[in-house]
């Protein structure tokens, strides 16, 4: 009995909060507690001694820490809620703080304000369209939220059309709302996606990887065939090349990128470039 208790105590000690800096780029699991750099020296593991009360405790000398997806705050503790790799982005100015988030490989999309997504129009009702974006409820899209649309001049949108748009309202308590114009009223590439082409789904992690500024995959794909491609943050990719065959090849490559290493990918690309 005593032995078992000791084992449990030991395991609890092993589960103590780890410093966020020490686990960067490592896999974190739900329930883990992370310590921010400023907490490390003050109240490191075990050292929850009384700290002198500071008047300007609110004035942050080290910069602000932002909690991204997969993390939550509970009091002054930082807890992990999703499994994935912990990432960090330094803030633009100064040291310390910055954004921490968990990069997970999930398939289900949850609308986020400002995300560009590909939706499918499922219904037209009066002056709004219902758009399926893969979230828990369809997003609404006003017929006036298109470039050059007025009450007289309605955009030509049919049920079943693909829409590339941006979220202006997206929170857990409200119906998400999309628009196909930017704040200046210009389309900026958004709107109804043309005929033909192929729509397919990948995981959200792959989309984020493809949209990263220094993505090699996209450059390699671009060298292969001339193509038109649209990435939605909701895991949908629309691609169109000159022929159906080329479109299918591109779709298969992008889908396969999920599980390939950089070397495997280069091999396949060189083989395709030869043929």
């Amino acid at each position, binding site marked *: 009995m005593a032995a078992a208790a000791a084992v449990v105590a030991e395991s609890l000690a092993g589960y103590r909060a780890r410093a966020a800096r020490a686990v960067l780029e490592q896999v974190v699991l739900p329930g883990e507690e992370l310590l921010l750099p400023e907490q490390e020296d003050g109240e490191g593991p075990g050292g929850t001694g009384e700290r002198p009360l500071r008047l300007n405790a609110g004035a942050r000398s080290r910069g602000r820490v932002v909690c991204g997806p997969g993390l939550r705050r509970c009091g002054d503790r930082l807890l992990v809620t999703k499994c994935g790799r912990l990432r960090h982005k330094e803030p633009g100015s100064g040291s310390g703080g910055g954004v921490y988030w968990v990069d997970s490989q999930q398939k289900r999309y949850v609308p986020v304000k400002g995300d560009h997504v590909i939706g499918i129009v499922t219904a037209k009702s009066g002056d709004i369209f219902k758009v399926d974006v893969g979230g*828990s409820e369809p997003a609404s899209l006003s017929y006036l939220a298109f470039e050059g649309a007025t009450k007289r001049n309605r955009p030509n949108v049919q049920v079943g059309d693909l829409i590339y748009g941006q979220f202006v309202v997206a929170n857990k308590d409200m119906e998400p709302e999309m628009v196909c114009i930017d704040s200046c009223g210009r389309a900026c590439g958004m709107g109804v996606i043309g005929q033909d082409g192929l729509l397919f789904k990948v995981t959200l992690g792959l989309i984020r990887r493809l949209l990263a500024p220094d993505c090699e995959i996209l450059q390699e794909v671009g060298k292969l065939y001339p193509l038109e491609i649209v990435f939605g943050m909701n895991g949908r990719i629309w691609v169109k090349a000159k022929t159906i065959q080329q479109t299918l090849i591109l779709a298969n490559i992008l889908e396969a990128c999920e599980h390939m290493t950089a070397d495997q990918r280069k091999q396949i690309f060189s083989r395709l470039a030869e043929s």
Partner: protein
Amino acid sequence: MEGTMQTETTIRAESGIESGPRGPSCSLRHFACEQNLLSRPDGSASFLQGDTSVLAGVYGPAEVKVSKEIFNKATLEVTLRPKIGLPGVAEKSRERLIRNTCEAVVLGALHPRTSITVVLQVVSDAGSLLACCLNAACMALVDAGVPMRALFCGVTCALDSDGTLLLDPTAKQEKEARAVLTFALDSVERKLLMSTTKGLYSDAELQQCLAAAQAASQHVFRFYRESLQRRYSKS
């Protein structure tokens, strides 16, 4: 305590059943887990404990029926499908136990008015089925990226007629046992989330089983960590 677990291991070694995966101090059967093996659900996992195998799929946060909508949190549904035939009363009772456990750890308030559905399919039952279902459900929820307070695991203990404690019993051992106890434990504080028992046991024996389950949960959580790290090592 330590002594009983030692003898237990030797009994298993004699009867030819695979001994625990991690040294002689752990008498759990061999684990195996595969994640993301189904393409349609948002998260899936298959969990093996010895010859017991359960396949789990998670859908969510997805659209919810208006009748089941809860305005301030996600609706959690668990469906357990037996290997043969239609689900009966036993399955319904297990579903409820699994749902209550999941509800304790899933942060449903982050996705109000949505549904999180867990579908469990029994592939083969060779004892400790409920524990295996709990483990499969946890791995599938993690795979789907559902926000959770902590991880959880299920551990089954069996008490023999002479009071010997068996962890992770096989179907035969379960049948011969005087009492079978299943616990669900969380990964942060190792506290009890759910317990279900069958048979006769004393107060002290319950405490003894719980301590053994807590010790065993450590191995399960270590296995979780290893298998998740392997999964994320690819990218």
